[in-house]
């Protein structure tokens, strides 16, 4: 446990129930809120797009962390669940002509149901075997998306009209920023609170020792299926938002690489930490964008730099995962905690 989390003395139940205990924590929360509000007024349009992508990634990453980090069920199927969310919402909007908020809500419910279905193998399988089974689910979902022409339009992309709610049309990244951030904040808060409920605690019990959890009266079957359903609900939300934000839905955006990206986000951020999902999303989405910028700057010295950018992005992506796992398997969240401790005790070591 980091030292900054110790030594808090509660005098009432109300103070114990708050998410933030110390003055420093509340001050930092204010700083973060101010930063979130300021960002769209400061940054260039390019970085605003990145900020929106980060917001969507945060939602998906919180969902995956609930499943992998907190419940210990390894899933390589996040891309597939994003696809289910995106396609459900897009098709309901185009074919059934439902309003977008309804579509997104239905997409969340549908993805949760499908996630629970694909979570059934988890009842029998653990660890490496489960990872392989979810890999198969990912391939099967994407195959269905590609070949069910009558439903999804097959390999062709679906384009969506601009989002319109109550006469207001969401045109630019600036308008979308507020929608996406609202959902991202909601995802983070619900994620944080989930693990203060009995259900959330039973997730962690199953992760730490499933047999002991079962002996204590945790229904392991129900817990695992619920973990898959809740995690997929977040993925469905992220997918649906992505569909309406970009206006284009195509299966190529939900390949195995996307599942791997989300796993990388939660590993770099910190497994079993909601804050870590946020740090990881910021880090892993900003990194390729930075490499692209570097490539452009580098072009005057080395003309081929721009065309090498995608390859360098892939190499750095792999390198970051490997380095984090070797040197800091508990991710950015742990690094941040250590920094806080260091500052708190300075000039002493402990």
């Amino acid at each position, binding site marked *: 446990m980091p030292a900054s989390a110790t030594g808090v003395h509660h005098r009432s139940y109300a103070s114990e129930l708050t998410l933030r205990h110390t003055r420093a924590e509340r001050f930092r929360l204010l700083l973060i809120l101010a930063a979130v509000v300021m960002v769209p007024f400061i940054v260039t349009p390019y970085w605003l797009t990145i900020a929106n992508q980060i917001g969507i990634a945060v939602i998906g990453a919180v969902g995956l962390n609930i499943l*992998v980090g907190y419940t210990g069920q*390894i899933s390589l199927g996040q891309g597939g669940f994003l696809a289910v969310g995106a396609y459900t919402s897009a098709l309901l909007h185009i074919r059934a002509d439902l309003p977008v908020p309804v579509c997104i809500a239905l997409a969340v419910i549908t993805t949760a149901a499908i996630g629970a279905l694909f979570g059934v*193998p988890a009842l*029998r*399988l*653990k*660890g*490496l*075997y489960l*990872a*392989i*089974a979810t*890999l*198969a*689910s990912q*391939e*099967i979902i994407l*195959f269905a998306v*590609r*070949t069910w022409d009558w439903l999804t339009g097959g390999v062709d992309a679906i384009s969506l009209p601009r989002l319109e709610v109550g006469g207001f049309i969401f045109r630019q990244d600036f308008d979308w920023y507020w929608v996406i951030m609202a959902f991202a904040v909601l995802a983070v808060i619900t994620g944080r609170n989930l693990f203060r409920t009995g259900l959330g605690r039973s997730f962690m019990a199953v992760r730490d020792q*499933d*047999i002991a959890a*079962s002996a204590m009266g945790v229904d*392991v079957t129900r817990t695992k299926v619920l973990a898959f359903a809740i995690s997929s609900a977040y993925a469905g939300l992220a997918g649906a938002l992505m569909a309406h934000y970009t206006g284009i839905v195509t299966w190529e955006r939900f390949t*195995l690489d996307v599942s*791997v990206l989300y*796993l*990388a986000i939660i*590993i770099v951020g910190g*497994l079993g930490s909601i804050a870590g999902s946020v740090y990881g999303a910021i880090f892993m989405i900003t990194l390729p964008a930075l490499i692209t910028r570097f490539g452009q700057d580098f072009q005057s010295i080395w003309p081929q730099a721009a065309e*090498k950018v*995608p*390859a*360098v*992005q*892939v*190499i*750095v*992506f*792999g*390198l*970051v*995962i*490997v380095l984090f*796992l*070797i040197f800091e*398997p508990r991710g950015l969240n742990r690094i941040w905690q250590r920094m806080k401790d260091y500052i708190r005790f300075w000039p002493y070591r402990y």
Partner: protein
Amino acid sequence: MSDFLQLTLFGLSNGAILALAALGFVLIYKATGVINFAQGHFLLIGAYVFYAAMIVFGFHWSLSVLIGVAVAIVLGVLVERFVLRPMIGEEAIAVIMVTIGLSSMFAGSVQFLFGTAPRETPRFLPSGAMELAGATVPWSRIWAIGIAAVVLTAFTLFFTRSRHGIAMRAVADDQQAALAIGISVRRVFALAWALAAATAVVGGILLANLTGVSPALAGFGLVVFPVVILGGLDSVPGTIAGGIIIGLLVQYTAGYIGGGFEQVIPFVVLIGILMVRPYGLFGQVRIERV
């Protein structure tokens, strides 16, 4: 009938290469307990090193094969020493992700050096085709089956007859007992990675000759999972049976059902096997109930 024969031979040759890739996978799993998601990328690297040696530098094909195998062995040992050894004792998710990270580094490096466009196929197996009961079968496919069979037999003999092979089986069985009788577990781990990389590279070279050299070769690695799960994660004979069954299944599905269904059939089989018999056809049965 001729269709059937042709599909069977194509399926057998693909299955033989799959078995080679799966053999490396099983070697690593047996000795070190690691699921190697980078196995397909060893195939990719093998194909590209062979291509570079033979077409770009113009070496003779036999020398090119040796260069490919040498690169694979060095790479396998380096990966074991610097990436997998710090991971000993970590959770399954960390071990899986570290090999996924590795696969990304491999794929990126190949893309950095060679780009994404398909390259000229380095041909060393005899070209031309043979007429057999009305079916047209390229000679290269038959050679591929033969070469894979020789390599697989060599490995089976290695495991049952040679000192190192028996040491590897001892480590797979019980690491502490192996240490107690003086086997260097570290050396066995390094050997497992080197051999796994070498078999994958041989598979990659054969595949390069059959289907051409392109980044898509790594996709072959994903089909390794159905093969090893079907055969049993820790069974060497299982890789041969699994490779051939999956290879044939894919070809028959492509030939008789079609519609892209052959891309997904291995994974359907995979889920089915996992639900019914997670230890596969020949794997060791470990029962744990929750």
